[in-house]
């Protein structure tokens, strides 16, 4: 739980964390299963309790996992829930979309738009210009710095992108 709060702070959605737990369609909770954190409705969780631990592969939505060194690593699968609540966003030009989906950082040249007053090292959600969430990362420069940056400087560090669904299928599960 605390981990998730950290995640929320990371994306500055702490105001919205209540929305994730208390939802109009029933209570949701976070569950740890095989070092992975799942966000799941209580009802579904109870039903999943029927399945033996070693046979249960996934339930609800996987948010991320704990590494062997006990650090929490957010997975791209959490994007669906993070995107609507995140405050800071970055939009990519169509030419830079593909670059990002192959796991590269975002250059200034590929930057379409960025939320005002994004601080440096702030977690951001990366969108395409057609408002499709593509992944998330960390702002390498604040909005102010971005304005004056060179075209080849990195403005967003890559953390996760939806290209991982094919690149990295094994690690997601």
């Amino acid at each position, binding site marked *: 739980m605390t981990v998730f709060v950290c995640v929320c702070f990371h994306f500055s959605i702490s105001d919205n964390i209540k929305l994730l737990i208390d939802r109009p369609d029933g209570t949701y909770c976070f569950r740890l299963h095989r070092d992975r954190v799942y966000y799941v409705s209580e009802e579904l969780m109870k039903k999943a309790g029927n399945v033996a631990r070693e046979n249960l592969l996934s339930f609800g939505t996987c948010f991320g996992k704990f590494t062997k060194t006990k650090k929490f690593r957010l997975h791209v699968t959490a994007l669906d829930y993070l995107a609507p609540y995140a405050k800071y966003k970055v939009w990519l030009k169509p030419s830079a979309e593909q670059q990002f989906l192959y796991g590269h950082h975002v250059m200034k040249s590929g930057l379409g738009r960025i939320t005002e007053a994004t601080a440096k090292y702030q977690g951001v959600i990366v969108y395409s210009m057609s408002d499709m969430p593509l992944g998330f990362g960390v702002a390498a420069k604040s909005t102010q710095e971005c304005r004056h940056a060179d075209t080849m400087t990195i403005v967003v560090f890559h953390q996760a992108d939806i*290209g991982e*669904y*094919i690149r990295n299928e094994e690690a997601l599960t």
Partner: protein
Amino acid sequence: MGRKRPLDKTPSGPGRKHKKQEDPGAAPEQKKRKRLKVKAGAVLEKKKSKKPLPVEEPDSDSSEELADEFPEEGVAAVSAGSDDSDQDILLPIEKKAKKQKKQQDEDDRLAEEELQTNLAATETIVLPSGQELAPDLTIIRQRIRDVQFVLADFKARRQEGKSRSDYLNQLRQDLCTYYSYNEFLMGKLMDLFPTELETFLNANEEPRPMTIRTNSLKTRRRDLAQALINRGVNLDPIKWSKVGLVIYSTEVPPGATPEYLAGHYMLQGASSFLPVMALAPQENERILDMCSAPGGKTTYIAALMKNTGCLFANDANPDRAKAIVSNVHRMGVHNTVICSYDGRVFPKIMHGFDRVLLDAPCSGTGVISKDPEVKMSKDEKDIQRCAHLQKELIAAAIDCCDAKSKTGGYIVYSTCSIMVEENEGVIDYALRTRNVRLVPTGLDFGQSGFVNFQQQRYHPSMKLTKRFYPHQHNLDGFFVAKLQKLPGEKHAPPKEKTQTPENGKPASAKSSAAKGKGKTNSQPGGGKTNSKPGSGKTKSKPGSGKTTPAGQTQAKSPKAKATPKGILKKKK
């Protein structure tokens, strides 16, 4: 298979020999006429410059050309000169015309002779001795046609002393060689398609069109189509589905567009929409997808449930089940529990589902265009082993289902096989051993299932099941049946079966086998992907106190054990 490509392009109909016969008549005539013109010009020139000379003069270029094209012209000219009395009166051009006429006659005569010999060959079709090496595909093709021609009116056209089965055997062998099937499968197909076999086989050689399914949780079909068209994809909606799109051509790989990665669509054969449409999942239900990898149907079910209720996706193979996890997350499905059990033990884990989808692992005979290996690799034992596993799975699926469910109580059984044993045979088993009945699938196209097939006689309601064929519907070969579970146990297990069991095994052998081997604990090797060796043995059918002899209809266990594991193919 590759070598068949060019053959397909040759126009069907008269065939190679026919063309050969026609050619000498038509084409050379034209050629000659052209040459005549050239020569005429040359000769006229000569006439102006010198006195007319006899044709045999060696220096003129026209005669050289002549010799080029007609090697035997010199001889012919000499003979013409000798027996023609008024040779010197004729102009050279006339002489040439005469020669040509003669040549033409000769050609015609030869052509006629060849025609006669060919006719003679077709009139009595001699079956080969079986000693031939290196078969010629064109000859085989011709022979297939010939044998079919004979079989169409067997009495009148047969060769003396040859029976119908001789012809059928020959036809089967030839078809096997030509389309590279094994004899067992070809025999089965010949039984299934007495009349339209060839169209079916040809349809198997061509790939089905690529289709995608819109994820209605994330986007609408129109928006998706627009987005893809902007990326240079040429597509069209599928008429009978609200979410299907068929892709004709594309400039980008459809499995790697940002839309695909964002979960806006799924690459999925059009045939795999059908079982989900038949299942007709409702919101807030509890649904089980028993053999769900790689998750195409699962995500479709979840989309129809609008992410409500509870969906269990199971697959026996944990590695394949990983693909479900990935797809489910990509498509934004949140109501799914993914687990990896042998489907046969699932009723012990959980039951009381409103609807169950069983897309059973099968021999894959409906998807030969996708996986041509099936042509050669399947034999009797594989089919029997598939059917056995399917019978166990459908029993488990029915046991998982809740008959008293307010909205459901339905089980949909589907395979991508077209074998009767794996389809109607399995449904028949379910009808005999469980308290279920067939209900309409809700699909308004497709052929109805077989009520009678060869010596098999099934329940009349079997016509409610649906079959789909590559050559008729341009879908993968597919079978869909929808069952409704009725409350209560089925009492009085059928004592004797009226129909003769397949493979000519007498009915008594079945039940005696059941008695001899005990109830259900002699499943051969635990089946396909049995991760836990014990699971096959400890299996008992919950909810069925009675002994079910039909569980033992299939292959004797030692035989099945000898065959390698993992030969069964789960459709992708």
